[in-house]
């Protein structure tokens, strides 16, 4: 199996009051190493649920989900935490940097949970911050950085554990057009270095920058005609 991510007949439903609401219907998807995939859908389409399941923050109601050889359905909470730490690098729309920590400390955070020594953590974090172009801003607190810079810190934090997948949720949603483009360029560069990226967005323009686009609508996933975008 070449794919690093495979979903088979994934269903997810929530209990809303007395009703059961299915938000994902028989989703099948597989991702191979080095892909740059975007999941495109309007709000309410189930893309957030999709992102939560991919990111192992939530487990499907039925169906099987394999990530890097792990059968996610079989894992307990502690093992899920480990998978999130090792296999997934999250990038959020609103960055989610801890406001009282410097850029460097924010990037170090996932490595603390990996159990790395302090010196090793610092070295890795410094390297990755240099790579995203923030070598001179390591000691800054998030509120001393621009939106674009904050998102770069968040991307560095996502990459520092060398995850299998970089999982981005509306990464440009909180940024202006120009900065958004710069962030997308950074994603493309990271992807060229071989990192698998899954990006969730409602913005068709942003989605088209990915090599492959899947549409999600009302809980159904369909492969888009990628040729049209390219």
């Amino acid at each position, binding site marked *: 199996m070449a794919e690093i991510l495979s979903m088979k007949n994934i269903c997810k439903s929530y209990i809303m009051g007395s009703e059961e609401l299915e938000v994902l219907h028989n989703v099948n998807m597989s991702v191979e190493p080095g892909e740059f995939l975007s999941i495109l859908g309007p709000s309410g389409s189930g893309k957030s649920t999709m992102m939560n399941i991919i990111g192992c923050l939530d487990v499907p109601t039925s169906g099987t989900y394999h990530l890097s050889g792990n059968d996610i359905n079989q894992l307990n909470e502690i093992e899920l935490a480990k998978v*999130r730490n090792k296999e997934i690098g999250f990038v959020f729309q609103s960055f989610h940097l801890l406001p009282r920590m410097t850029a460097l400390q924010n990037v170090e955070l996932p490595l603390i949970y990996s159990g790395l020594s302090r010196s090793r953590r610092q070295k890795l974090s410094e390297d990755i911050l240099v790579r995203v172009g923030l070598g001179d801003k390591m000691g800054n607190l998030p509120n001393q950085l621009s939106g674009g810079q904050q998102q770069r810190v968040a991307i560095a934090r996502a990459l520092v554990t060398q995850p299998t997948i970089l999982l981005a949720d509306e990464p440009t949603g909180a940024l202006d057009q120009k900065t958004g483009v710069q962030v997308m360029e950074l994603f493309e560069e990271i992807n060229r270095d071989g990192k698998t990226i899954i990006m969730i967005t409602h913005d068709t323009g942003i989605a088209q920058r990915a090599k492959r686009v899947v549409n999600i609508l009302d809980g159904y996933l369909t492969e888009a005609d990628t040729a049209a975008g390219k």
Partner: protein
Amino acid sequence: MLWESIRMSWENIIKNKLRSILTMLGIVIGVASIIALITIVQGATASISSEVNSLGVNKIMVNITGTPLKSGLTGDDMETISQLGNISGVSPTIALRTSIVYNGDIKEKVAVQGKNEVFFKTDASLLKSGRAITPLDIESKNRVAVVGSDIVRDLFYGVNPIGKELIVNGTAYKVIGTLASSSGFSMNSSNETVIIPYTTALRSLGIKSISSLDVYLKDTNMADKTVIDIKGVLSQAFNYREDAYTVFNMGDMIESFQEMMSIMSMLLAGIAAISLVVGGIGIMNMMLVSITERTTEIGLRKALGATPNRIQLQFLIESIFLSLMGGLIGLIAGGLLAYITAVVIGIIFSISAYTILLAVGFSGAVGIVFGYMPARKASRLNPIDALRSL
């Protein structure tokens, strides 16, 4: 992993200085009041105990009220008691208030006591100058007297009284020694006393029997048996009339006094412990607020790979930190308060390791107990909801 959690907790406390200090205040007050109360009560106990100890714990006091037929003990009765086991010495007292005269100056209603050499042996510091009453004085019924410091001051006006002639109850005595002045608070103050051999007293003061005895013990652990033995002798001497005498063990008195004080200190500490509980609730409240504030942070940490245990540990350490720091500050504050009080009211200040351990243990326990629930709540937050809450 533990070290990282400690470091993160510490940074959080430091970054919320004012709030952390206010939260700690409850614990500070609780621990300080416990430490201060226990230390002050223990100091007072120690001070009073040492005062009582100076009266002698190795002593059994026998007081004779007598019967119509027999008003007190005879020399033979005393001899019988001194032959009992576990007795190092018996000191009788024959007391009378009468007038004394020196060089024409008269002093009325002075306590004249007939005693023997055992009285002087119990405490070497009793005698200030001259010599004490000896067994020879007892045997020969010598007319000699040892005088208290007030007598020296009031009658002799700075003249060395040793060798001078003092008239007691109409009879001349030679002054052989003076007593050191004792504290006015002391129950057995002898500043205004004239002490003469008890045999002399029996012959010259018109008293025919001994009204009280101090029986000194070799082994205080055997005091109970000795009390029974003494009662046996007295019972026989007074024809089985038990109301004719009282036998009182000083050791018992100190024991019951100390017991009372320890109950009191427990009671006070218990009251102070209530404030510690209030302080604990303060910590719990602050932790819950902090968790609500940091919901996103908790969600993020979980997304980045923190296990529920890590989250729980971090918050638990934070609350333990807060309460231990509060406990430490409280320990210092309470110790200081107790010290100042001890100096002001003049009691012994000593802070025991047990007290310190109690403070640290108590505050640590408060941190665990009141931090557990919030920490558990934090660890159970669903990361999806937590991240969405921003």
